[in-house]
């Protein structure tokens, strides 16, 4: 694999690049989900996860199925559902906050064993 081939590969943006990008985003989402102690950040990383999936869907729609773009339809559905989840997440967060004034995930350890 000489240098030119790698250069050609790099600069000719293919489907793989998008899949890699969405994979990176997905992994960042996972890390965010687990590492952050603030519940809001956890909700945000869920949104990142879903957007990573969106990228993947749209990329596949663009490269494999330009005819009827089923991937993009899927992406729209995902966005709608992500919004719904964010809403419910906020509601639960507020209810939690009202019972105990903190957003730290370490605080909510009542149910265990």
């Amino acid at each position, binding site marked *: 694999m000489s240098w030119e081939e790698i250069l050609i590969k790099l600069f000719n943006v293919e489907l793989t690049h998008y*899949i890699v990008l*969405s994979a990176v985003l*997905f992994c960042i*989402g*996972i890390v965010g*989900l687990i590492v952050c102690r603030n*519940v809001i950040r*956890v*909700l945000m990383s*869920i949104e990142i*996860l*879903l957007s*990573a*999936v969106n990228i*993947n*869907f749209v990329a*596949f729609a663009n490269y*494999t*199925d330009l005819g009827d773009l*089923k*991937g993009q*339809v*899927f992406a729209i*559905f*995902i966005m709608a*559902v992500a919004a*719904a*989840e964010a809403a*419910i*997440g906020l*509601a*639960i*967060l507020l*209810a*939690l906050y*009202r*019972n*105990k004034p903190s957003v730290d995930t370490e605080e*909510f350890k*009542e*149910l*265990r*064993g």
Partner: protein
Amino acid sequence: MELITQIKDVLLPESVMVLFILLTAILSFLLGSQKQNFIFYVSLTGVALALVSLSFADYTVEKQALWGSYVSDYFTFVFRIIILVGTAFTLFLTKDYVENFGRSKAEFYFLLLTASLGGMLLCGANDLVMVFIALETLSIASFALCGYTKLDKLSNEAALKYLTFGAAASAAMLYGFSFIYGITAQTNLGAIAGLLSTYEINSVLIIAFLLILAGFGFKISAAPFQAWAPDVYEGAPIPVAAYLSVVSKTAGFAVLIRFMTLIFPEAAIFSVILATIAVITMTAGNLMAMGQQNIRRLMAYSSIAHAGYILLGLAILTGEGITAMTFYLITYLFMNFGVWAAIELFALATGKDNIDDYSGLGIKYRYFSFGFVLCLLSLAGIPITAGFFSKFYLFKAVALAGFWYMPVLIIALINTVVALFYYMRIIKVIYLKPPAEIRHEHVFKIAFPVKAVMAVCVIGVITLGIFATPVIEESRVITVKQDQKVAVSR
């Protein structure tokens, strides 16, 4: 017009449910807080009507509707019955539990009906998008249900955990869906099946399969994805916990069966994956239930263990296995709701969930504890109860799948022994320990609907036990139909 006929004979129950969902939503706004009980009867009639409408269309022939996004055949018919009956039982359980919800009683019924609508759609979903949306309706509605008693901080905590875990799992599932879409450029399951059957199994497909399994595993609380179950079952209100342990699990299994029989080719690797997950789930569920003190957590672990057994039926990828799974789910419906009804009765009367507080129940309340113990024995798999027959039928199917599955069978059998221990521990407390004094002053009035649920479950457990044959015939649901794999040219 053609749409109307499609909906009439394929989606009739769902449309009835949609009607009643909207009705409950509107009524919950109109009626004042005190007349909310009327909503219970409305939703009950809704479920009943859906059940009746189910029996109208003949489901022997397999029909697709709305461009193949929903298929209704004998398989969906049986699973929809389980879901509707489960919803009916949950409705009965909530009737007395509702005082805890403060002012907003009616919305509970609305959310419950939406969830079961999602479940029903999930059974018949024949399109990736439809699967996703149905799954999400079921999940989001149950997130809301789980956190319903908003002033009880445990319920909130459970809702938070359930939401984050659910969202993460569904994100992973979607990621799997995207890869499947990438490989086949189709979203209709039939079309995907046609393409995948010729697609050689490479690591992308395996990754996609496992990611999808994450989503469904979350729903049926299988091995690595079951960490949420104990906390949610303990935190959520009891009817919701019962609902999750039966209805959402059945819906999860329905879609998993459809995926396994249709999309993923019968390769050995998939049955090995499913078998390992089943074994891990079973063993983890049973072991963790061993020293459990809180009965709701114990029921959570036992539901995980039962998910393991049912998953075993799927792992062997034979028609016989799926029939065993269906029959197991039918018996599981009755067994589980019987126990949850008892837990609710006891919780309503004494507000306690610890097993030791059940001491001495058997001496005074004979009929109640008899039903409770019978359901527990059926869960443990002691003969003459339905549990034993379903377990035995499952083991027979596994044995019939060839000698490779013998070690798995032995592990499953050993698990039943471990399971017997912690079920007997409860029975021991009920019958042997002296009655705890605190209960005497409580007026142990047993709410009628919960008693009705208990009675129906006990009758179900016994009749299924003795007359298992007709029911097994009915649950001979699926013969993997090759024609569903529509050959779609690229």
